[in-house]
């Protein structure tokens, strides 16, 4: 575990792999170190941000982090959350052509795995998911769409994701869900949290 300063009031902790990121995130949430205001997971790192008055406390935390006892992976996994999808996306025929599979097989392979929410970013509630079947890896669209409706489910490279809000984007759209991923009036506002497990199902 390597700890790097990210400015004078944050540490970027290299956990190595995603599972350790989530275990470390859980351990630090539990520890609740004084002055720490944000814990932000990435694919391999956890960012620890302190408020300016407590920035000095990060030095001690940086020393203590490598010896911190982490909870087992099973204890920190959430879910699984089910996301029902209508697989009628505009790009489904194109995805079938690119992968050499028929549309039905694309849907079968997309609904088969249990995905892990690596982290949320890009926009509030937007999940970066790992676990996509490599047979479904397709390039982004050559021309991004100027507006993609909220709830769109898409593919890009080794990633699959759901757009929580309408936004521009270049992902290949295979379907849409009615599930609300982010609602500022809800507590917590995001349906998914880092480390949550997720399954796509065919909406009935």
């Amino acid at each position, binding site marked *: 575990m390597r700890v*790097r300063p990210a400015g004078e009031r944050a540490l970027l902790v290299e956990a190595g792999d995603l599972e350790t990121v989530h275990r470390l995130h859980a351990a630090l949430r539990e520890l609740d170190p004084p002055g720490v205001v944000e814990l932000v997971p990435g694919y391999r790192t956890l960012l620890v941000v302190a408020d300016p008055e407590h920035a000095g406390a990060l030095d001690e935390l940086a020393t203590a982090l490598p010896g911190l006892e982490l909870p087992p992976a099973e204890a920190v996994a959430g879910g699984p959350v089910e996301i029902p999808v209508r697989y009628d996306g505009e790009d489904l025929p194109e995805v079938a052509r690119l992968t050499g599979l028929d549309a039905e097989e694309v849907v079968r392979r997309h609904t088969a795995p249990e995905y892990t929410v690596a982290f949320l970013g890009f926009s509030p509630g937007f999940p970066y998911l790992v676990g996509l079947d490599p047979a479904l890896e397709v390039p982004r669209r050559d021309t991004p769409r100027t507006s993609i409706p909220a709830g769109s489910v898409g593919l890009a490279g080794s990633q699959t994701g759901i757009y929580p809000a309408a936004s521009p984007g270049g992902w290949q759209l295979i379907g849409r869900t009615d599930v609300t991923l982010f609602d500022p009036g809800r507590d917590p506002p995001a349906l998914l949290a880092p480390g949550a497990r997720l399954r796509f199902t065919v909406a009935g």
Partner: protein
Amino acid sequence: MTEGPAGGHASIRVLRPGLLTTVQDLGRHGLAHLGVPAAGAVDRRAFTLANRLVGNPPGAAALEITVAGPELELQTGGWMALTGGRAEAELDGRPFPMDVAVRAEAGQVLAVGTVTSGLRAYLAVRGGVGVAPVLGSRSTDTLSGIGPPPLEEGVRLPVGALAEGDPFHQVAPTPQVDPEPLLRAVRGPRDDLFTDDALRTLIATAWTVTSDSDRTGIRLDGPVLERRRKAELASEGMVEGSLQVPPDGHPILFLANHPTTGGYPVIGVVAGGDLPLAAQARPGTRLRFRFVSVTAARQSAGGAPV
């Protein structure tokens, strides 16, 4: 508008919104792991000064004025203060001074003109802007659209009841606008992905602020910062002040409304105490950087609270 109850009758009517006038406080914290940006005032030093002048707590919501100011009709009398980037302002046609609390009467119109030095001015009203908080903050998040929309003609802004001290009757020292600000930065966290030459170039260059800059960040123009390896970086959490370097090699300096994560490496992070200088840098301004230790960066960071 003094001592009006929260959400009560005291209010301000927007006659003209200006170019981009938003409600800001000290930001939305504790939700970065859900992808929610902090947002909040970009120049927190000028912002907290405006609040102090009118006797508000430092985090009361105020207006952030960008480049061209608004015209506002006051529905009730009260204390106001204008700070930050230099702007000509008039209250019913008479000069409205900056950096001091001014008592305005019901029915008067405050017209804030163009910000001629610096980029952003802050207008605090005694009691704070009383719009409803969203996820713990009244800030407009210009990146993801959370919080109140930017000011529009005809909108009425409620005035809150957050005042806790007396208005401050002396003129605060006028901030100097440095024509070529020198910002302190801590190396890393991804300095090892760059060539030694790139690190030297970062601190040897007067970087030009481009017009492609907003509350999210400042795009800088100058020489290309070369990476040691072309390997992609796995996305990771980002802090305010990050100098993120996309594949074109030109750094972006993240400001208050930066995204929570990013996939490009950060070569250095500007000290919080120097971010107000970046917040006021107009397109065309040249910025310089110098590396300091973490300990040195913590000193004099007091001017920029969370």
